[in-house]
């Protein structure tokens, strides 16, 4: 992996991902104006364009690194999330799901375009590091979905409390939103936990090798990740403590989502050695 040539994403690839994000935004706008077919077409075009960029990029490099560098990882996961949303909206629509989740997908594509690095991470050579990246990324993705659905829950709840049935778009029933959020949490939280533990172990190992005196536990990325873990842990334990059910769990998921976004941004500005 380490001898792979460094390929900087060219302007065409960056433009492609930004256009893909733009198409996702247009899809959300079309959905907001009840143009479902247009929304679906735009979303599909965004996915097709994103896939084309990743294929082109991989062909230029001669290998596909789905999770080993930020460009491929963020692009791949952003497209995967958009595809999942489109599938749900096609198979059994949840009103407003695309409004809340597709922006996350677009955000990931924009982040890939702006911050995307194409040099494989230095620690991408062991099974531990692979486990870390796979579980951390997919766990964060599932938790992000839970957070977005939590936000939907809060909006739907507010409408119900204000007895507003005449809102232009229904956001799906509270029961279904709660169920989606719980499923996402049940998948995302264990994965994220494994990602966090393996990441910490790798950080300690790297610190020992590099002789870095800065405590790894206080790195901003680690602190934010722990915050994410705590917020979603509280949200996940509602079946044990039902007084957390509903509004509180949704609010915690939303806080978790903001922390996930902050973590993804912060990690881009950290020196490679701290990863």
């Amino acid at each position, binding site marked *: 992996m380490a001898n792979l040539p460094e390929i900087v994403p060219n302007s065409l690839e960056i433009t492609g991902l930004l256009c893909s994000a733009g198409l996702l935004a247009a899809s959300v706008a079309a959905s907001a104006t*009840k143009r479902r077919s247009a929304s679906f077409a735009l979303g599909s075009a965004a996915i097709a364009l994103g896939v084309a960029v990743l294929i082109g990029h991989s062909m230029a490099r001669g290998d596909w690194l789905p999770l080993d560098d930020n460009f491929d990882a963020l692009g791949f996961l952003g497209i995967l999330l958009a595809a999942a949303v489109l599938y749900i909206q096609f198979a059994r629509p949840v009103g407003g799901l695309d409004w809340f989740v597709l922006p996350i997908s677009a955000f990931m594509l924009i982040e890939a375009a702006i911050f995307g690095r194409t040099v494989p991470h230095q620690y991408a050579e062991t099974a531990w590091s692979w486990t870390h990246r796979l579980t951390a990324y997919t766990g964060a993705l599932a938790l992000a979905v839970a957070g977005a659905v939590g936000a939907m829950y809060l909006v739907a709840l507010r409408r*119900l409390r204000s007895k507003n049935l005449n809102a232009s778009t229904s956001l799906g029933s509270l*029961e279904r939103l709660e169920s989606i959020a719980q499923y996402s949490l049940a998948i995302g939280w264990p994965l994220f936990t494994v990602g966090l533990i393996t990441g910490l172990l790798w950080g300690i190992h790297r610190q020992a090798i590099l002789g870095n005196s800065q405590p790894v536990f206080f790195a901003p990325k680690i602190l934010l990740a722990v915050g994410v873990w705590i917020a979603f842990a509280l949200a996940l334990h509602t079946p044990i403590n*039902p007084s957390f059910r509903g509004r509180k769990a949704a609010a915690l998921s939303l806080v978790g989502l903001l922390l996930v976004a902050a973590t993804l941004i912060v990690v881009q500005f950290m020196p490679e050695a701290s990863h």
Partner: protein
Amino acid sequence: MEHLSLLGLNHTTAPLEVREQLVFDSAQMHDALARFHADFPDGELVLLSTCNRLELYSVRPGNGGGKTGEISSLEAWPARLTHWLAGVRSVPPALFAQRLYHKTSAQAVEHLFNVAASLDSMVLGEAQILGQVRAAYDASREVKSAGRLLHPLFQRAVAVGKDVQTRTSLGDGRLSVASVAVDFARRIFDHFADKTVLCIGAGKMSSLVLRHFANLGPGKLIVCNRDLAKAENLSRQFNGSAADLQNLPELLASADIVVSGTGSARPIITRTMFDAVMKKRRYRPVFVIDIALPRDVEASVGEADNVYLYNLDDLQETVAKTLSQRKQAVDSAGKIVNEHLRQFLLAARAREIGPAIDQLYKRYHAVGQEELARTLSKFNGITAEQKAEVEELVRRLVNKILHDPVRTLRQNEALHGLTGQYLHAMEMLFNLEGVGEEKAEDVPPEADQSKFSG
């Protein structure tokens, strides 16, 4: 187009006693259409029969006939159709003749588009009418009583209705307290097969609301009342069970939807009682509908987490908002109807005058060619290039001469309803023959099928 006629009555012109004698079920409608087809083979008919209206969209037979008498003028057709309808329904014409309205040409088209868009309905924006318009058209297609004019007209009408439904909020929301309550329940719960509906009180209003919730197919339905016999009586109607009011706290702990409508002077569900209930039900969401006056449920119950309390005012306010929202959408719906009307009339006129224009061009180009040949025969030694130039000159000359009258025919919107007269004038002035004699069977039923999409 001026052969198109609408004869009908609706809830604004005829009382229920009259309408009920003229209503057609599906089989009767097919029979009536078949009879019309037999009586007037070159006429067209679509029969729209709903509980609020009976409308006959017909194309007057153009040959002045029919098996049962002469129909030579537009004025005679409504009377003929009235008698035909009376015969089909076996009622005297006097029963309904005075209640009828009659419209022709563009006015009839506009009326149908308004009907399909639910702008002419008793309940503004109700969605059923579009299905009824489509069913009426389907019946006519099956019996082959719709032809060259009614096929595109009804296909366009269905497109208008769909357009209004998707592009405006005319059909959004509910207009009864019970259906609003069900809509709120759907915003809370995803499925109802595992839910319990509890009805406190066995009065008329409770029964009405309960009927709506019973249609959701809940797992369990319980009626609870001081008078157990009344509770049993009501629960039997919905395959539910009855319970005594004394067991209320236990019943509340198991219920997901609570409809309360007792005649109690004081609240029977207090916050203290409900806090204990919520703990017992592990904070599962509960939807409480208080339709009693004075109220059965303390207002503070609705402040608890996962409790959604709605009283009669809340539900009625939603109904009022829906009504107001629908009224606001009327303008947008009207614009859509007008746009479709304009497009349809233009297309209809193009269909009517197209063959005439075609024939006009053919005829005068033939005259031009004839004169050209005569002139060219007088010249010797004319080159091929010179001949082509002169031919082009004649072609351009004919086109320029015909350009203005043809453009006027195609574009002048003031011609609505006068197309037939213009066609007749063209036939006479330019000595055209057989203009506009396109046969009904030449037009495929799905000619305007694209309008269904979207």
